[in-house]
C-alpha cells in the first residue's frame, strides 16, 4: 500500500514538474523580429515593430514578410503596452534580430537609454544586430522586408555573410556595445544603412508579371533591380554610447583589416595610372604592440599580413606590371588608407580600431587601468601600420615551376 502511495505521489510530482507555468499557446505571441526607433512627434520616440508574417497561400502579398506595428511612447514599455491593447496577441521580443535606430537619435546617445532599460526586461537577446539608419529607422525596417521573404530572420545571417565575402560591412551585436562601454577599452561600430525607394524589388517584379507586364522591363531601362530597398552603405562609428561618424563601405573594409576582422575582399587598383585591375585580398595575420606608459605620444605598431590574388581586368596592363605594383605600391596604399581611417575615427573621438584592447594587456591592476583613462588619451595615440602583401598567384606559380 505504501509503495503504491509513494509511486502515485512521485507520478503526481513528475506530472506537475512536466507542466507549464502560465501556459500560452504559440499563436498568442507576436514575435518581434525588428525594433526600429525614430524620434517621436508628441512623445520622445516612435517605435516600429516588425513581426514575421505567416506564410499564406497563393496571394503574393501574403507570402511572408513582415507585419509592422508602430506607436509613439516615451519608453518602449509605454509603446508595447499601448500596442498590446490593440492586437490579439502579446509581443514577444526573444527573437528580435535587428535593432534599427535613426542617425538623429544615435547621435544624441539615445541607445544608452534604450539598451540599459529594455534588454533584460523585454528578454531581447544581446546578439541582436544594431543598424543605424541614415534617415527614418521605420522606413529602413520596411525596406528590409520589402521582398516578402518567407524567413525574414535570415537577413541577420545574410549580413554576416556579406562581411565574410566583402569585408565592407561592420556586423556587431548589441552585446559588444554594452561591453565596450563598460570595459572602456574600445568603441563600437555598427552597420550604417540607407533606404532607397528607387530600387525595384523582387516582389514588385512579381506584381508586374501578375499584371501581364514584362517583369524585366525595368532591367531594360537601366534601373536598379532586385534585392531589398534598404541597403548597408558603410559603418557608423561611436564614441561611447554616441554615434560620432560614418565610414563608407571601402573605409569599413580598411577598418576591418586593421581590426583583424577581415576575411576576404577586393580592391581596385591602377598600376599604370590609367588601366584598372581588381586584386582579391585575403587576411593572413595581424599583430599589435602598444606602449601606453610612454611619455608624450603613445606609440603603437600594427603589423598586418595579407594575401593578394590579382585579377586582370584591363588588357592594357601586363602581368608583370601588376605583380610589380602589388609588391611595391599596394602595401603603401593599403597602409595609407588604414591610417586615413584611423585618423577619421580619432577625429570622431572613437577608438573603433580598439587599441584599448591591446593597451589593457599592459596593466597589472584593474584599478590602474580605470584610473589611466584610455579614452582621454586617444589623441596621444600615434600608430604605425605596416602592411605586407604576398602575391599568392606569383608564389604558387614560382613554386610550381
Amino acid at each position: 500500500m505504501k509503495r503504491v502511495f509513494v509511486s502515485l505521489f512521485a507520478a503526481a510530482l513528475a506530472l506537475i514538474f512536466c507542466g507549464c507555468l502560465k501556459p500560452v499557446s504559440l499563436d498568442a505571441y507576436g514575435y518581434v523580429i525588428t525594433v526600429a526607433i525614430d524620434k517621436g512627434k508628441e512623445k520622445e520616440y516612435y517605435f516600429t515593430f516588425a513581426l514575421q508574417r505567416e506564410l499564406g497561400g497563393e496571394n503574393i502579398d501574403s507570402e511572408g514578410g513582415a507585419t509592422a506595428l508602430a506607436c509613439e511612447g516615451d519608453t518602449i514599455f509605454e509603446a508595447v503596452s499601448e500596442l498590446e491593447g490593440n492586437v490579439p496577441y502579446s509581443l514577444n521580443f526573444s527573437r528580435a534580430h535587428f535593432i534599427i535606430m535613426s542617425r538623429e537619435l544615435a547621435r544624441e546617445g539615445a541607445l544608452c537609454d534604450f539598451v540599459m532599460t529594455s534588454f533584460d526586461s523585454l528578454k531581447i537577446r544581446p546578439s541582436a544586430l544594431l543598424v543605424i539608419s541614415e534617415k527614418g529607422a521605420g522606413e529602413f525596417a520596411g525596406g528590409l522586408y520589402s521582398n516578402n521573404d518567407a524567413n525574414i530572420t535570415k537577413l541577420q545571417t545574410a549580413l554576416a555573410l556579406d562581411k565574410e565575402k566583402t569585408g565592407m560591412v561592420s556586423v556587431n551585436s548589441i552585446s559588444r556595445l554594452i561591453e565596450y562601454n563598460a570595459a572602456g577599452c574600445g568603441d563600437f561600430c555598427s552597420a550604417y544603412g540607407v533606404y532607397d525607394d528607387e530600387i525595384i524589388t523582387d516582389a514588385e517584379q512579381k506584381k508586374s508579371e501578375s499584371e501581364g507586364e514584362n517583369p524585366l522591363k525595368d532591367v531594360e531601362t537601366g534601373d536598379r533591380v532586385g534585392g531589398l530597398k534598404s541597403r548597408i552603405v558603410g559603418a557608423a562609428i561611436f564614441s561611447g554610447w554616441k554615434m560620432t561618424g560614418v565610414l563608407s563601405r571601402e573605409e569599413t573594409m580598411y577598418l576591418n583589416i586593421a581590426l583583424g576582422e577581415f576575411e576576404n575582399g577586393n580592391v581596385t587598383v591602377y598600376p599604370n595610372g590609367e588601366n584598372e585591375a581588381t586584386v582579391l585580398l585575403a587576411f593572413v595575420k595581424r599583430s599589435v604592440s602598444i606602449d601606453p606608459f610612454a611619455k608624450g605620444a603613445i606609440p603603437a605598431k600594427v603589423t598586418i599580413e595579407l594575401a593578394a590574388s590579382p585579377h586582370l581586368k584591363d588588357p592594357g596592363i601586363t602581368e608583370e606590371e601588376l605583380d610589380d605594383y602589388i609588391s611595391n605600391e599596394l602595401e603603401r596604399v593599403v597602409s595609407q588608407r588604414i591610417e586615413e581611417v584611423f585618423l577619421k575615427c580619432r577625429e570622431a573621438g572613437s577608438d573603433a580600431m580598439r587599441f584599448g584592447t591591446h593597451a589593457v594587456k599592459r596593466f597589472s591592476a584593474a584599478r590602474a587601468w580605470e584610473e589611466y583613462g584610455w579614452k582621454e588619451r586617444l589623441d596621444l595615440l600615434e600608430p604605425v601600420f605596416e602592411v605586407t602583401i604576398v602575391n599568392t598567384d606569383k608564389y604558387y606559380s614560382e613554386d610550381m615551376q
Partner: protein
Amino acid sequence: MRMNEGRIGVTGAAALTSAAMITNGLFALDPEFAYAEGNSAYIALPLSAIVSLFAALALFASMKRSNSADLYGHLETSLGRYGALAASICIMAAFMYCAAEPMIAFLRVLHRLVYDGVSYASILFFVFPMVVYAAWKGLETLSRSAIVLFAVMLASFAAAILAAAPDLEAYRLYPIMGDGSGHFAFLTAAQTLAFLPPLAAAAVNMKGMNGVRSAQKAALYASVVSAAVVGAAELALSAIYPYKVLSGLLMPLYRINFLSLSQSYLIRLDKLYITVWLGVCMLSSAYMVFSASHLFARCFGQKDVTPAAASFSLILLGILLISVKGGRAFLSETHRALVRFGWIGMIVPVAAASLLRPGKAGRKA
C-alpha cells in the same frame, strides 16, 4: 532507526558532492563581490576548491584517528558535548546557506529571463516540492539521481561553452588577476563557504558512504572534478565578458549563448541547459537539507531524520520566500556580510575538529 542513509558507493558519493560543489561555486557566486574590482575568479575558485579539499582531508585524517562513525561523533570526542553542539549549529547554518543560495539565484533567473509574467512564488512552488521529496527520500535516492544528472550537467556545460567558443577573446582576461593579491586571497577564502560544506556533508553522511576511506576518496575525486569544471567555466566566462560586465550580471553562464550572431541548434539550447542545471541545483539543495537534518538528528539523539528534514525544508522555504522578495536593506546587508565573512563560521569548527586532539571518549573508541 530511520536515518535514510542507505549505502552508496564512491561514484555516487563523488557525483553528489561534486554536483553540490559545482552548483555552489558557479551559480551562487556573488558577481559584485567576485568581479567588481577585477577578475581573478577563474583562478580563485578552483584554488578555493583545493583549499577546501585540504581542510576536508585534515578533518578525515582526524576522524580516522578518533575512529568516529561520522562528523558529529568526531565533534563530540574532540570538542565535548557543548562544543560539538555549537560547531554543529555553525555547520548546519552553512549547509542551509548552500541549500538556499543557488536556489535564490535560479529563482531570480527563471523569473527575470525565462518565464514571462510568472511570480516568484509560482516558480518556487513549482520546484520546491521536488527538493523536499528528494531530501525526505535520503542519501541513496540523491546519489543515484546525482550519477544520472551529473553526466548530463557536464555535457551541457561543455556544449554551452563550445557553442560560445567563437566569441572568446583573450583581452577580456586582462588585467590578469587585476583585483590584486589581497582581494584574490579574500575571494579564495570566502569561496570556501561554497566548497567546504558539501565536503563536510560527506563527513556527516560517512556511514552511508561506507566509512571514512570511501568518504575521503569521494571528497578527493569531487574536489578535483569541481575545481576543473568551475575553473574551465569561469575561464570561459572571463573570456566572454570583461569584469565590469560580469560584476552586474546575474548567472552569466546562462547568458553565454546569447551573444553569438550565428544561428544553430546548439546556440538556442539555453532553456534546456538551465533546466538541467536547475535539476542539479535542486539535488544539491536537497543534499544540503538532508545533511543538515542528519546532523541535527545526531545532535539531539533522534532516531528518525524525517521530522528534521521537514523542519529544515520549511526553514529553506522561509529563506527563499524572504530572499526572493528582497527590497529590505537589512537583508541585503546580511547577505553581503555572509558572502564575505560566512566562511569563518564554517572553517573554524572544521579546523577545531581537525586540530584538537580527541578527548577520553575518542581515545576509548
